[in-house]
């Protein structure tokens, strides 16, 4: 693996860890923080006069930055536990709602298929019965 890929992997791993620590935030807010951090790391490397492929400089910059847990602590401290909890419950409610709609649509589809099969079977047997009553030997079934 070349240097620039190693550098990118280190940065991505740090940002992924911060992202996981911020999983209680809305996606837009989390993305905004991660975008800011990505630019911050780039600016710090530029300030050091580092080429993007210098792994040691990236390690130094990342070790001088806050841990993912620090971001979690900062973003949960000002918010009530109820707010975080209600957001989680709201998300769960949405999943159940969408799941319910999916199940209802599936049930309707299955019902329609079964009804169609029953109707076709009944029509066929009626036609067969009419055919037998007519005594004509050349009755053609569809």
């Amino acid at each position: 693996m070349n240097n620039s890929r190693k550098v990118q992997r280190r940065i991505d791993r740090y940002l992924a860890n911060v992202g996981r620590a911020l999983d209680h935030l809305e996606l837009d807010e989390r993305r905004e923080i991660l975008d800011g951090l990505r630019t911050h790391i780039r600016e710090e490397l530029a300030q050091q006069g580092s080429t993007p492929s210098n792994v040691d400089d990236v390690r130094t910059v990342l070790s001088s930055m806050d841990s993912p847990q620090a971001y979690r602590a900062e973003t949960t401290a000002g918010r009530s536990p109820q707010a975080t909890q209600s957001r989680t419950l709201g998300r769960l409610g949405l999943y159940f709602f969408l799941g319910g709609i999916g199940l209802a649509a599936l049930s309707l589809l299955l019902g329609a298929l079964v009804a169609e099969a029953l109707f076709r079977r009944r029509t066929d047997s009626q036609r067969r019965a009419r055919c037998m009553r007519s005594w004509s030997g050349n009755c053609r079934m569809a």
Partner: protein
Amino acid sequence: MAGWISQFRRGLLELCVLNHLNVQEDHGYQIVQRLKQMDGLDVRESTVYPILARLKTEGFVAVHNEPSPGGPPRKVFRLSTSGKARLRSLNAYWDLLAEAVNKLRSDGPEF
């Protein structure tokens, strides 16, 4: 004491970010560097970027992209109209608090 200072600092930092953006629009890195120069605020990336993201979510700051030499565009933050209104009320509240605390201090004995 440490918990109280941490909560107080967090609120104060939002006021400082808004006041900085009232002077000039700026991108995140420069805001962090500017506030780091102020003693007592103990500014870290983990405090400023979440504040900027929240202010954007709440509509108090607006963001536009600016070309960056040798990299992808940088996000530049500026105060929105509602951000200016929020800053006015926060500054007024800060003046009120500072005056009240200073008055109480001046009534007490010198340490």
